[in-house]
């Protein structure tokens, strides 16, 4: 079978799985229903992973580009499956498949859930290989609609509200995205990436440059809403904190990164042709780099202030995506490889953290980091899983976060971003220490406190085969990813088109261990400050500040206004 067919099959399989799930809803017998669900997930999540393996030899040579069904280029849908698509699919399917396994124990179990989950996965792979702006818009919308519905799946009132705000902001963003698409089509007369890239070299007049620049601003800001960077990240914490745990893992792990890299496939292709508009690209990418770096710092301050454990993790996702964006915006192949590595490793350890913390939340019935105590009672596997995740996100050797953060720091060496990101790392360590409080055994003093609730603290060991399997898979992936980071770096480098390995050659040296220890010491100090009286006062002030509905939209228009003005002023 040729690789073009393999790609189409790989995209269609999750969608057929979703259809099967709806079929299973019609079955009367419970056993039959579950059997079909499993088969659907196997077809939609695990088989595509296998197909990716067969696609590797072809993709590593050159990108595969074709029209679905060999249609005429004027009417056909063009797909372009390149190294980045392959890498995104690996990230998406591994995270989605493992999270789905977790949901078999922890719920939701309904066929509708599996169906929506598979539709979301389908949209992920379609986004990763679309080569046409309008197709990208449709993929974003499917991705969005599936994720709004999945956010609401936990059935809590707050989840519905979070899904609604998420939808309102992101639909507005998509309307702006369409306006951007319109601008690009109006000026270049093309929608496919190739067509736009061909026409862009012929653009010379000032009006066209400004028009195209503003259209690109619309597209970039609309995508930034999905990626959740400063200033448009306000919808994320509530949505990721209230979704079912398996969904939080996928939302934080994959959903915020795929739009970023999909945008990159478009922008970087246009940039490879020298044109009059190059300066606009540089400006937009500079702004994104600045915004990503600041996001890494600001979000970690918010994370440090949260009581709700899942909100804390959600803010960490924003902070980590800041690292990814700051590397991605450098736009060299090596930077993209480093950004992908951190994105992938973040998907693994954040998945692990969301699932293990989710297990503790379900067992204790509380989400408050100050109430939960003795969380180790839920069992050995969730406890180890949590600490593997926490050590990975805090970038301790030899876990995977250490390698990918080293790659990103290596890129920024000697610039101001390096300093900001280092401060953010200290914040990450401090907030992970805060989160680890859940595992402190309950002291006698806890029982004396007035807010003590005996029901909350009865933690039983969790059972459930699939829950443990999913945690073990993620934990192993975190450790292996760290140990074999150089091989991963080489693979990522090759697929984005560079021979250089983004991971520094001397990774586990005495110096790096010293650096980690000094970061740890600073983290402990910061943590001690946070639990001191003035620290508590400040963090409480930050925590109670909730973004309002109007605030979300205001931040969005602010972002568009600022970037638009910048482009206008420079021309």
């Amino acid at each position: 079978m040729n690789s073009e067919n393999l790609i189409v099959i790989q995209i269609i399989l999750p969608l057929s799985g979703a259809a099967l799930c709806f079929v299973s809803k019609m079955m009367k017998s419970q056993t039959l229903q579950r059997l079909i669900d499993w088969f659907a997930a196997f077809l939609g999540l695990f088989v595509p992973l296998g197909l990716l393996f067969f696609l590797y030899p072809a993709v590593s040579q050159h990108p595969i580009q074709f029209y679905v069904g060999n249609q005429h280029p004027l009417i056909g849908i063009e797909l372009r499956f390149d190294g980045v698509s392959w890498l995104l699919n690996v990230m998406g399917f591994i995270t989605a498949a493992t999270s789905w396994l977790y949901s078999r124990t922890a719920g939701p179990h309904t066929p509708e859930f599996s169906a929506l989950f598979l539709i979301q996965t389908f949209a992920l792979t379609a986004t990763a290989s679309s080569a046409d702006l309008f197709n990208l818009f449709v993929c974003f919308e499917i991705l969005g609609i599936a994720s709004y519905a999945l956010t609401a799946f936990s059935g809590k009132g707050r989840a519905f509200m979070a899904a609604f705000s998420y939808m309102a902001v992101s639909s507005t963003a998509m309307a702006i995205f369409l306006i951007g698409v319109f601008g690009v089509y109006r000026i270049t007369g093309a929608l496919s990436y190739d067509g736009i890239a061909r026409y862009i070299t012929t653009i010379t007049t000032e009006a066209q440059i400004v028009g195209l620049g503003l259209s690109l601003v619309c597209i970039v800001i609309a995508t930034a809403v999905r990626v959740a960077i400063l200033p448009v990240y306000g919808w994320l914490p509530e949505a990721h904190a209230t979704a079912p745990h398996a969904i939080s893992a996928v939302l934080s792990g994959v959903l915020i990164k795929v739009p970023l890299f999909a945008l990159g496939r478009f922008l970087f292709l246009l940039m490879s042709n020298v044109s009059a508009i190059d300066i606009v690209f540089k400006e937009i990418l500079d702004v994104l780099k600045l915004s990503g770096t600041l996001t890494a710092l600001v979000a970690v301050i918010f994370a440090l202030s949260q009581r709700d454990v899942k909100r804390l993790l959600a803010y960490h996702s924003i902070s980590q995506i800041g690292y990814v964006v700051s590397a991605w915006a450098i736009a060299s192949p090596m930077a993209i490889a480093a950004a992908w590595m951190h994105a992938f490793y973040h998907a693994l350890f954040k998945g692990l953290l969301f699932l293990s913390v989710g297990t503790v939340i379900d067992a204790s019935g509380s989400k408050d980091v100050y109430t939960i105590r003795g969380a180790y009672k839920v069992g050995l596997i969730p406890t180890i899983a949590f600490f593997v995740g926490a050590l990975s996100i805090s970038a301790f050797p030899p876990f995977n976060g250490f390698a990918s953060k080293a790659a990103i720091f290596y890129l920024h060496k000697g610039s101001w971003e390096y300093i900001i990101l280092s401060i953010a790392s200290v914040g990450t360590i401090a907030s992970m220490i805060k989160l680890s409080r859940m595992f402190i055994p309950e002291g006698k003093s806890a029982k004396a406190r007035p807010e003590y609730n005996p029901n909350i603290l009865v933690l039983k060991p969790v059972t459930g085969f699939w829950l443990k399997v999913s945690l073990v898979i993620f934990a192993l992936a975190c450790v292996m990813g760290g140990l074999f980071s150089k091989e991963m770096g080489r693979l990522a480098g090759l697929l984005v088109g560079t021979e250089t390995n983004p991971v520094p050659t001397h990774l586990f040296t005495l110096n790096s261990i010293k650096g980690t220890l000094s970061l740890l010491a600073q983290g402990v100090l910061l943590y001690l400050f946070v639990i001191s009286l003035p620290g508590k006062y400040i963090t409480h002030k930050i925590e109670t500040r909730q973004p309002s509905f109007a605030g979300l939209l205001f931040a969005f228009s602010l972002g568009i206004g600022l970037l638009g003005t910048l482009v206008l002023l420079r021309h």
Partner: protein
Amino acid sequence: MMINRILILCLFLLGFYGLMVQKNLVKKVFALSIQNSAVILLFIVEGSRIGDHAPILSEDRVRYVDPIPQALMLTAIVVGICVTALALALVYRLYQKYESLNVEEIQRKANNE
């Protein structure tokens, strides 16, 4: 031609304003829909710049509209309907839960949960 664009911009801003300011959730959904319609109108109006006949191939050479924006907007309309339907479903569940459509009241109640 300019007046068309200005009117469409007004329509879009009206939707944006409604989404931002209206307290009632159903009105927010209306606002979303208005926003979407404004973008659809923009595509259709601009697509008709090069001609005003329906894009059907025939013997005599007539100047027909650019068919691509129209084709795109069919998809955009469908997507818009999906979003509206999901939004209304969410609003309905919120109303069942909190017996109110006022966004501030719902947020207050939800935070106290």
